[in-house]
């Protein structure tokens, strides 16, 4: 029973669902705490067998250390987000026990996505994840914008599903199986790649690009990020991205590793457009959450770039970048969650003006995280970018490296603009002070992490290198 964490989480979510109606007042807090405990236990199960590797359920799922690593990353992120949810001042519509439970189901979906070893099981778990996320995005059901975002996300998500299924059926038609092992076997016996197979792969890639919001499939991102409740945006910008990248890496490296020439070109286009749109699109944004959406697109482009060589080093660097990306994003969103004026959440960039005057500590921490996002040394973001650029230049993709650094300068412009508002602008109306000590300490923690990574990058390098080994040993 190696897939224990997923089963455990699924059972627990059902149990919590049954328990929740019987809790009287403040039920959402109790369920939230229970969810946190459950996530913690699941984390324990995963870490116990992190170096274990096995194919289970007749090749439906695979457990390996690469997957376990990403899963534990997701669970850490999930734990932090639930913790945020419990400690911040939520609006009334979010104070429902269902929130944590649906959240938990989404996490189960993500974990299953990462362990999928078959297009069918992948589809199934992806749906589990997406359906839960649709609900979460439109969770503030009285809020018009939230509902609109939910509908948008649902439509795009279903489109992505259709495209995925179509690609799957094409591949099934050629290979006669949906299992990754069979596809891999089929590919290795071919002399020339049938065009239909590539078309099928392109469909799957498009579908996954919609999930990771790589341009030109990014259109939904800013709207959904802005419309969804901030806590859900925090979730959207971090965890599903990890899961989708896990799937993308697994599909491209393992069954389709033979046709790297074909998907490499597609990834080049995807990453260049993502970096360009992610950096240029954000320049004129006035809403912090929309800006974060474009920032996500930019980062996604950067991460995709490292996948182009399809090498072990490249995937190691992706894992490292994901760790840093999550800490940066969670840091910024933790601040956005606490951004209130007169007890009402605000998310406009203008509201940041003069934050330094009223809350120097918070402003300093936020500035460190933003500098890190811009990739200014000596912050963590720079180390991540350095490692990825290293891979790119190692593979002689100079033009890509030049585009990457130039777009990161453009991206630096808007991060610097935020820092400008925080430090240099005169305050218009001051934000409420963040009295929430939990959030304060967490924000300091994220900033400190981003600041000090430069002293021990080898820890992350060794960790990620040891887990990606498993991905290549399957072949």
């Amino acid at each position, binding site marked *: 029973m190696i897939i224990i964490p997923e089963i455990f989480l699924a059972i627990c979510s059902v149990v919590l669902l049954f328990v929740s109606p019987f809790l009287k007042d403040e039920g959402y807090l109790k369920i939230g705490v229970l969810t946190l405990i459950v996530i913690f236990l699941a984390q324990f199960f995963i870490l116990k067998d992190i170096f274990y590797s096995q194919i289970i359920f007749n090749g439906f799922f695979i457990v390996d250390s690469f997957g376990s690593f990403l899963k534990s990353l997701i669970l850490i992120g999930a734990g932090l987000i639930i913790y945020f949810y419990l400690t911040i001042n939520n609006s009334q519509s979010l104070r429902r026990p269902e929130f944590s439970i649906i959240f938990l189901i989404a996490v189960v979906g993500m974990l299953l996505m990462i362990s999928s070893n078959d297009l069918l099981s992948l589809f199934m778990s992806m749906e589990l994840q997406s359906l839960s996320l649709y609900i979460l995005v439109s969770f503030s059901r009285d809020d018009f914008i939230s509902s609109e975002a939910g509908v948008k996300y649902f439509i795009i998500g279903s489109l992505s599903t259709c495209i995925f299924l179509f690609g799957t059926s094409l591949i099934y038609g050629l290979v006669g199986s949906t299992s990754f092992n069979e596809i891999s076997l089929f590919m290795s016996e071919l002399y020339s790649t049938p065009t239909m197979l590539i078309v099928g792969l392109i469909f799957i890639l498009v579908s996954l690009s919609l999930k990771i919001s790589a341009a030109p499939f990014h259109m939904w991102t800013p709207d959904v990020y802005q419309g969804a409740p901030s806590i859900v945006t925090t979730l959207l910008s971090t965890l599903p991205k990890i899961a989708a990248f896990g799937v993308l890496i697994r599909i491209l490296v393992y069954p389709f590793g033979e046709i790297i020439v074909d998907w490499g070109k597609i990834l080049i286009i995807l990453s260049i457009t993502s970096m360009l749109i992610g950096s240029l699109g954000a320049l004129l944004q006035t809403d912090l959450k929309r800006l974060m959406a474009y920032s996500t697109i930019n980062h996604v482009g950067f991460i995709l770039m490292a996948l182009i060589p399809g090498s072990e080093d490249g995937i190691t660097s992706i894992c490292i970048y994901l760790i840093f990306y999550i800490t940066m994003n969670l840091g910024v969103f933790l601040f956005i969650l606490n951004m209130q004026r007169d007890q009402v959440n605000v998310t406009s960039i203008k509201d940041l003006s003069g934050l330094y005057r009223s809350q120097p500590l918070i402003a300093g921490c936020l500035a460190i995280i933003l500098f890190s996002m811009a990739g*200014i*040394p000596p912050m963590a973001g720079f180390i991540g970018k350095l490692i990825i650029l290293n891979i790119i230049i190692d593979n002689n993709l*100079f033009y890509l490296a030049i585009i990457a*650094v130039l777009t990161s300068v453009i991206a630096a*412009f808007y991060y610097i603009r935020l820092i400008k508002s925080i430090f240099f*602008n005169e305050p218009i109306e001051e934000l409420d002070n963040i009295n929430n000590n939990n959030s304060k300490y967490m924000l300091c923690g994220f900033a400190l992490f981003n600041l000090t990574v430069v002293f021990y990058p080898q820890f992350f390098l060794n960790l990620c290198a040891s887990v990606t080994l498993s991905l290549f040993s399957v072949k």
Partner: protein
Amino acid sequence: MISLPILPILIILPLIGLIFIFLSSEDDEHAEQSKKSALWTSASTFFLSLYLPINFDKSIPHFQFVNTFAWFNNDTLRFSLGVDGLSMPFILLSTFLILICIIFILPQSKKNMKMYLAAFLLLESFLIGTFSAIDLFSFYIFFESILIPMYLIIGFWGGERRIYSAYKFFLYTLLGSVLMLIAIIFLYQEFGTISIPKLLDFTLPFYIQVWLWLAFFSSFAVKIPMWPFHTWLPDAHVEAPTEGSVILAGILLKLGGYGFIRFNLSILPDASIFFTPFIYFLSVVAIIYTSYIALVQEDMKKLIAYSSVAHMGFVTLGIFSANIQGLHGAMIQMISHGIISAALFFSIGSLYNRFKTKEISFFGGLNNKLPKFSVFFLIFTLGSIGLPGTSGFVGEFLTLLAVYSKNTMVAFLATLGVILSASYMLNLYKKVFLGTLSENFDKKNVDVNIYEISVYVVLVLLVFIIGIKPSFILDYTTTSLDRIIQLYPISIF
């Protein structure tokens, strides 16, 4: 030799002061306690940095006081620190200028004084790191990190258009240096090492050198700055607070010259020969064109900023003439400009503190009102022109000598710059200090205070010491620079 890890200590010491400043709970505009800790920290850093020249072995061209630290778990990727004759004077210049900046700040009051001092200490740590880094990655990390405190100094404590200038400064320099990052990673991939001394043993094919040279050039040409990449400098100078301008002109510009010698000239010699005419062209244009622009400036700081670009033109001429006089000239010119422009910015700061303006037309006949101050200013003016006996003369003379041996025409044109610099600097002095007393000064204005006198006296002494006995610096640099010249192929330019 005693194995005191002097360079890491010098880098960490300002950071310790930084912690003390953050720990003090005071939050007013004077922040006496923070001033004290900043003064102590910077003073001890400066005196500790004197350890370098005292224990420096002048006969060794290689890096000394080398310390390496594991970074990535890999033998090739290590942080290494060390100094040679090229970088040592700059470390001393940094610690010295930061110290006198802090002394100059002492009598002032500013909003958020605590953070202001903290930013300078942070800057000091990064500057020492940049000059003592002898591997590519740590050089880049320190080099880029400098942007953060400098951005905050300009943007937070600057003048009216501070935000625009801070932006411009940040993005210009960032844009230049990201291309250098690619070149650095390429060098690492090509040779499997990031250690600068080891890179000197390799040679690259010419066409690769050209690209790498351009990448490094894009970073250092913006930093130094060369015409036509100089447009950020006048803005940044005008808007930066006095001490920010001092550090900007005094040290940050030298990073460009230092980088040119350290990377372009040493690691990529063939491409340097190829691009020498290009550099000559840009430098001559910078010297003449910006001098003319300086002539018509109405803002004192802007005038000095343009004159900086012209002076840096001499530095690039000296560096790329690639003989020993040229490098010596460039070194002396950089150090001397570091001192003189710092002094001029301090002087303008003093005037600004008294009269709250930097407009030249506002002043006139000031030598009646501030006699001591006007003497100091005259000395710095003459130093900036390059009067024999001052440090400016040595730098320009050696540079022109070197260029003359390579290309007479360029030397002739560059000499015009000397005349022009005399005209704009003397013009400035005339308008501000001579003539009849402008009626703007009915109020009682005090002459220099004790802090200012101590700063100016030290600077004046340095101007004369370097001017009369340049070997005071050159003794340390000769062997290292000689080695660079020996490795350099003979060129026709």
